[in-house]
């Protein structure tokens, strides 16, 4: 599974987007999942690469936990998440024999697996590859960027929540992007307020304002605020397509708007 497969497997991918944060639990996997679904609804062919080795959340978000990964002649076949094969996924979650077993690896072993994930998955033709990352600025991130560099990623979507504690970490992530030469497509502020289903009062559960302020300070686009919606949480837990099932939710509107901005920022490709 070596150099012979390498140039081929990513050559069919038009655009690569990394979803980063620096802070854990802000919704990177959620945003990766919903962005992929929104791009698919816009008629694009999408792949998701989940390089969070310690906490691979994405399989469950599509109800794909426990699916097996097969080898094909070009490498590993990604798991297709729909009958039309318009959305596919690779995650270490598929390689774990026991889902409760911890992947307790130090850096070098993680780097090796990420390199394999990047080069040995037979994605085929894709409009977008969304790469979900773990929190932090460490081995996995450096390995992923080094492995993807030759394919000129479109850029990074950086996710934060409104609080200063998140923004504090995400500022460092923006520095990381600068240092590694990764273009920042924009900042997404997630968990931006909760509307009480009983009285419709909107509460800033996790403070307010951090995302816009961060984007302004760093001179990068602010792509939008995504409010909290328990139906989104439920969809992710149960592996349903929130974009398809809840078009009336303000969270849906926010997510579609962000996806549209990505589409608008994508340079047209020569056929």
């Amino acid at each position: 599974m070596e150099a012979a497969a390498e140039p081929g497997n990513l050559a069919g991918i038009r655009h690569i987007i990394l979803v980063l944060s620096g802070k854990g639990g802000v919704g990177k996997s959620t945003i990766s999942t919903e962005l992929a679904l929104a791009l698919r609804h816009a008629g694009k062919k999408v792949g998701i690469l989940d390089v969070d080795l310690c906490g691979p959340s994405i399989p469950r978000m599509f109800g794909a936990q426990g699916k097996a990964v097969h080898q094909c002649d070009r490498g590993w076949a990604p798991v297709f998440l729909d009958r039309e094969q318009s959305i596919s996924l690779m995650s270490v979650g598929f390689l774990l024999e026991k889902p409760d077993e911890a992947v307790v690896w130090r850096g070098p072993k993680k780097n090796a697996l990420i390199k394999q994930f990047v080069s040995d998955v037979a994605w085929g033709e894709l409009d977008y590859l969304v790469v979900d990352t773990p929190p932090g600025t460490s081995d996995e991130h450096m390995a992923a960027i080094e492995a993807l560099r030759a394919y000129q990623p479109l850029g990074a979507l950086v996710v934060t929540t409104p609080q200063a504690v998140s923004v504090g970490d995400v500022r460092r992530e923006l520095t990381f992007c600068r240092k590694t030469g990764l273009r920042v497509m924009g900042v997404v502020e997630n968990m931006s307020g909760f509307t009480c289903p009983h009285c419709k009062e909107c509460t800033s559960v996790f403070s307010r304002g951090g995302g816009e302020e961060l984007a302004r300070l760093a001179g990068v686009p602010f792509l939008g605020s995504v409010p909290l919606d328990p139906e989104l949480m439920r969809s992710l837990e149960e592996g349903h397509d929130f974009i398809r099932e809840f078009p009336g939710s303000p969270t849906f509107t926010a997510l579609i708007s962000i996806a549209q901005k990505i589409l608008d920022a994508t340079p047209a490709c020569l056929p």
Partner: protein
Amino acid sequence: MTDSQEPAIEEIKEKMKTVKHKILVLSGKGGVGKSTFSAHLAHGLAEDENTQIALLDIDICGPSIPKIMGLEGEQVHQSGSGWSPVYVEDNLGVMSVGFLLSSPDDAVIWRGPKKNGMIKQFLRDVDWGEVDYLIVDTPPGTSDEHLSVVQYLATARIDGAVLITTPQEVSLQDVRKEINFCRKVKLPIIGVVENMSGFICPKCKKESQIFPPTTGGAELMCQDLEVPLLGRVPLDPLIGKNCDKGQSFFTDAPDSPATLAYRSIIQRIQEFCDLRQSKEENLINS
């Protein structure tokens, strides 16, 4: 364990002799409130002026503790006996990589071995003095930092780990892995805290589940894996606000259900540590 780590382990064991109780705050999942919990555990324990508390933040990439403790911009000083922690109160000292960074934009882009080196220094070179409780806040995951802190403290005896989760399966699935990690490395588990457990609307006072426990929440997981559920902390918007301001949430909202939940959990942790201590003393004396 490599040869180069051996002397450090002995040195750390010596250093830790003046530290009575050591508690690790873990999760597996990011963003569930480890740092928030660690900070408030420290504040809660430090309310007893006769107790000396130390809070060590080993999240090298995302050091949140300085902000939450209102210590942003503070620097670490060296003395003959090592690095001095930064004191919030006379009896509450804090150490974090955050204090070693000159700017809030500085990114710590280190691979595993360098992170391990920093953790070793934090454990070996910080002059904590006589401490009743050392609380170690960890980053999410089960990687270098977690392996290192467990290895370096292996001979210094950790009382146990408190695991933080939120009610959703996406958190629980990571916390189950963390429980397995603890069992693998023989780290005692004090118990699990379910954070962000329900939200009370400040206007109409009705409860909502922002993060629905679709697979039974922490309660079912704890039953299945036979670990204690220490308590549930509801979402209170004042928690986030106070963390942003670097203040103790207990001072701002002493009667909040979240404060009451925290206090009950802190008491259970103290009871666990006291029980462990007396068990050991009985063993030594018998």
